């Protein structure tokens, strides 16, 4: 369920926030809302068509399917901040996270190209300027993309 959109105290950022069930049917509404905010903020068309929707779809799907093991009752918390400088989205699930370096190594392997899965984290890194992860109250992935 989306929480109300709000203006950041700096008056120049849009904040969007959701706490959704672990159900992939919830993903598209989140992605489309963040994409619309990026379009409104004047982000480049290709970024709005490709980078933002694909990377965010991967991150939210990963949180639902891997972090929360697809258990509908376990929530995923998403917080997006969009302004003229950058997009930043934090996606928090209840899982224990993943080993970014191990994922990167798998992408170098020959059989990675012919595998049916394992591209999600790679695409996040490829399409965003920065991907950070940490554990606090749950596991969080932070996507950052600068507008220019």
């Amino acid at each position: 369920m989306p929480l109300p959109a709000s203006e950041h105290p700096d008056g120049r950022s849009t904040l969007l926030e959701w706490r959704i069930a672990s159900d992939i049917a919830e993903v598209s509404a989140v992605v489309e809302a963040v994409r619309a905010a990026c379009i409104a903020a004047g982000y480049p068309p290709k970024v709005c068509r490709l980078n933002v929707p694909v990377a965010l779809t991967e991150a939210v799907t990963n949180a639902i399917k891997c972090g929360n093991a697809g258990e509908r009752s376990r929530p995923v918390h998403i917080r997006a901040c969009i302004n003229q400088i950058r997009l930043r989205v934090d996606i928090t699930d209840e899982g224990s996270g993943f080993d970014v370096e191990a994922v990167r190594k798998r992408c170098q392997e020959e059989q990675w190209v012919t595998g049916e899965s394992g591209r999600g984290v790679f695409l996040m890194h490829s399409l965003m300027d920065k991907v950070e992860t940490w554990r606090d109250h749950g596991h969080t992935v932070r996507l950052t993309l600068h507008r220019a």
Partner: protein
Amino acid sequence: MTFVVEQTEDSWRVAIHGQLVVTNRQEFKDVVLAAVEQGAQRVLVDFSETGYIDSSGLGALVSLNKRIRERGGELRLAALNEDLRTLFELTRLDTLFELHDSVADAVASF
């Protein structure tokens, strides 16, 4: 998001209208495999009306490529826009699939 299936004399065309993502990848696989079950040997996926694809959609294409090849068939991908080509290049899937600029080119390649 819809899939349009068209059988011609030489091949089957499956057009993706909208996104190919985690929410509809299984439906897409079911549609293509139903065509394969009906004897489709030459299958082309038409991306001219497609927005974006996520890793689930790319995985579905890899899976279908294997299934079709196992049955002696061929899969071609056609009319990918610049964004979609970027995704295939990033993931090196442009080395696994034949990407064609148009449906006509893809049909001619069979």
